[in-house]
């Protein structure tokens, strides 16, 4: 083959290719998609061409997050922790909410009272003398993005769906509050009764805290229900049919979520018309995006990254009260940590302020009380505070417990980034150094898989563990009954058992706000301080990096933004 004929062949092949490309058109039924996946387009949803143009014109808020849910059905996605939380709260469509606008620094410095709810979908409510039945009237101006008005049928169907599909909802409804299995009774299209077995502080508040309790447009959902899928879980994976401020314009599972204004939304809102959540796993990339003003909000930065942002023009680092607490705990069923004096020695040997200044870079507060210090709390009592850092006293206490000079055997400490976060190893190293001063040798064992870590945690198969307590809401009754009850705790993993604590904690959970509840709270908190079922380290705060151009920021106790209030 000579060079000339090769060239002719190559030219002919190229020409054929160009002609083929020019002639190729996609088939008429070609689907439209965003990169990665075609989100299920539904009746009434914005067509992609319109969306693209709307995206150009709309006031768009860009939000970079570490990870995004793969599933918009909160009954499933809500189990998966943070990937859902970043966007999930913004869907709203709950019966109640907490009004933080009137609180100190719009909720940044204080939690709302757990029973001080505002109506969202609920217009008004009252309860009977025994407070076993709430009569709730819905707003008459609520219409979903699909044009269906809100009725009590939607409430009844949604609550039933929660019970049938969402494990967390059952915990909320029946362990944190005290609902019966079938709490809803319809009176008319806008009025229903909600029964409780016994009144608790969070009877209404649980509807303000967890978007898994969102009220769905049952008319729309039922269009996609089948015999095999009566709750339309398949359709709900990629679609949202609620009554909140946003509708889903585009969803690429795990990558991107685009929300646009629900024109039928009943409430007030800022000028943000479009929200784009992008999952950017690499925190240094998210840091660069906010400093380059490519995005408006960034979540999930490390503490040193947050520190680097302070003082940067155009970026605000919000650091507000949050309900989480980081802790170290020990298996108390047998071994040295079954002795409360050993646990107290651990508490005395930890310099919590140094911990906050070190691994947390100041973005937390030293745990000073048996309960989170931001909670509505009885009057401060000096005896209800953790003792100051005192390693000598700790060593003396160990000696008193029969461990003169420390423990003979090293203690395996398991950690995982899922809880409390990427700083788990830093905290573990810090504690290793602190406890070595009193002769307790910690051997740090990172667990890569959150599945393994949570299994070992749930089964109590650990000697020591660093963990993050993350109650549904910063409220004493919820927190006290989560982990420490002898028999009826939702999750007692340490083997801790103190009948005095049980009596006080159960009273807190069953009493309504008042002096009697305050006293029970005080008693329970005192047991936590003295017996240390968990050695609480810090009270976590909520940090977000936000463009300085954004206004209308309200700080909710769940730590996430409700972006429909924002102005840009």
């Amino acid at each position, binding site marked *: 083959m000579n060079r000339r004929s090769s060239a002719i062949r190559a030219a002919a092949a190229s020409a054929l290719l160009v002609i083929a490309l020019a002639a190729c058109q996609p088939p008429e039924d070609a689907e439209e998609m965003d990169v990665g996946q075609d989100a299920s387009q539904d009746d009434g949803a914005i067509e992609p061409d319109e969306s693209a143009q709307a995206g150009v014109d709309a006031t768009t808020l860009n939000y970079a997050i570490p990870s995004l849910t793969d599933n918009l059905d909160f009954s499933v996605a809500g189990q998966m922790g943070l990937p859902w939380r970043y966007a999930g709260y913004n869907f709203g469509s709950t019966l109640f909410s907490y009004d933080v606008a009137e609180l100190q620094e719009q909720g940044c410095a204080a939690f709302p009272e757990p029973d001080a709810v505002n109506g969202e979908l609920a217009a008004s409510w009252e309860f009977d003398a025994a407070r076993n039945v709430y009569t709730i009237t819905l707003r008459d101006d609520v219409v979903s993005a699909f044009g269906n008005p809100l009725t009590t049928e939607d409430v009844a169907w949604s609550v039933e769906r929660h019970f049938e599909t969402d494990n967390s909802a059952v915990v909320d409804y029946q362990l944190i509050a005290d609902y019966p299995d079938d709490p809803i009774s319809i009176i008319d299209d806008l009025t229903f009764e909600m029964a409780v077995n016994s009144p608790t502080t969070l009877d209404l508040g649980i509807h303000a805290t967890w978007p898994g309790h969102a009220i769905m447009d049952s008319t729309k959902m039922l269009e996609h229900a089948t015999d095999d899928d009566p709750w339309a879980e398949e359709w709900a994976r990629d679609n949202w049919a609620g009554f909140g401020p946003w509708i889903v314009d585009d969803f690429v599972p795990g990558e991107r979520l685009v929300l646009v204004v629900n024109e039928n939304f009943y409430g007030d809102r800022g000028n943000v018309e479009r929200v784009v959540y992008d999952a950017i796993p690499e925190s240094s990339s998210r840091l660069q995006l906010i400093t380059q003003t490519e995005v408006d909000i960034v979540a999930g930065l490390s503490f040193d990254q947050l520190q680097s942002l302070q003082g940067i023009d155009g970026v605000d680092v919000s650091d507000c009260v949050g309900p989480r607490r980081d802790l170290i705990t020990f298996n108390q069923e047998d071994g040295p940590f079954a002795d409360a004096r050993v646990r107290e020695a651990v508490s005395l040997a930890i310099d919590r302020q140094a911990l906050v200044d070190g691994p947390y870079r100041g973005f937390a507060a030293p745990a000073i009380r048996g309960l989170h210090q931001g909670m509505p709390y009885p009057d401060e009592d000096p005896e209800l505070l953790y003792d100051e850092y005192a390693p000598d006293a700790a060593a003396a206490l160990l000696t008193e417990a029969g461990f003169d000079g420390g423990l003979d055997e090293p203690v395996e400490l398991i950690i995982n980034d899922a809880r409390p976060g990427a700083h788990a190893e830093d905290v573990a190293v810090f504690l290793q150094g602190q406890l070595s001063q009193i002769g307790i040798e910690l051997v740090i064992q990172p667990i890569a898989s959150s599945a*393994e870590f949570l299994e070992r945690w749930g089964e109590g198969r650990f000697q020591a563990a660093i963990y993050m307590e993350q109650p549904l809401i910063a409220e004493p009754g919820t927190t006290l009954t989560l982990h420490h009850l002898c028999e009826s705790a939702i999750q007692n993993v340490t083997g801790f058992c103190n009948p005095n604590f049980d009596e006080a904690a159960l009273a807190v959970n069953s009493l309504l706000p008042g002096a009697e509840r305050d006293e029970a709270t005080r008693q329970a908190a005192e047991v936590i301080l003295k017996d240390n079922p968990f050695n609480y380290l810090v009270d976590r705060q909520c940090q977000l990096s936000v463009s300085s151009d954004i206004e209308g920021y309200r700080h909710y106790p769940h730590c996430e933004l409700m972006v429909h209030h924002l102005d840009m």
Partner: protein
Amino acid sequence: MSLFLLKRLALIPVSLLLVVTLSFALLALIPGDPAYVIAGPFPSDEDVAIVQQELGLDQPVWVQFKTYLANVAQGDFGRSLYTQRPVVEDILRLAPNTIELIIPSIILAMVLGIGIGIMAAYYGDRSYGRLARGVTGVIQSTPDFVMALLLIYVFFFLMGVAPAPVGRTGLGDVTLLRWTGFPLVDALLTGQWATAGVLLRHMVLPVLTIGIVYSAYFARTTRATMGAALRSPQVEFARANGLSERRVVWYAFLDARTPIVTYSVILLAAMSGGVIIVETVFAWPGIGRWGLDSIVELDIPAAQGFIVVTGAITLTLYILLDLLTRYLDPRVKYE
């Protein structure tokens, strides 16, 4: 040749069966139970047991395996334990992104690496040769995540000429017409030139990262094989006949190309499982990150689907490599 090909193709399902069996056994040995994650943030023992029953995790491993094999034989790879999405759906969504990343990356790595390697081999101990060897050494000692972060810092953060590392497109919407499932291919075929431009711009840094890092391995391979070829009797004879140096180098490359092609296919097969670190740094929605998360979180159906698909791709590529090697060098015989 046809018999050889048929025999190799027949081995694919057998090999895949072995891979699936081994991986299922290994995954079963990994500690942890995904039911504790799926059951919610505060699962009781009863909640966990219910989830285990719903997902079949309470069955003996051999029963789970039997059920899985039966489903796979019918093309059903099951659903993710966590997201409840069909595994096939996730694979079809993510694999094209990985393929569109690794193919241009390999091509870039080959072009760069072969060029540097030829330079190193041809100039030997002279200055250009030493320069080429030095460059190879520096690149080879740079981990891919360092290269990635460096490129982002220089070209995006400092110079502002590269787009943000936020995935395949920018932070705004980009809507495509889906045809093949490969975003860039679809954009080009359907004439969406603006979208293609966005996709290409966002490919630059990740492709550069992988291309530069892996060029070092091509460079070393090329230098070794070209060095030997340039000293061969046939090259000496070509020079003695007065052929130009360019022609001499070309003849030497023809002699040395087989190991280079072999290495490129092996690398392509290895990358078919995704380049996890680069995918993470650039938020690239590829199959590697998805597969790793599935394995770490014990999402068994997703992990198995990932293993089967990447195993099938690898086996297919190796068969193609055998055929290609035989075509390039007819002296090679496999029987």
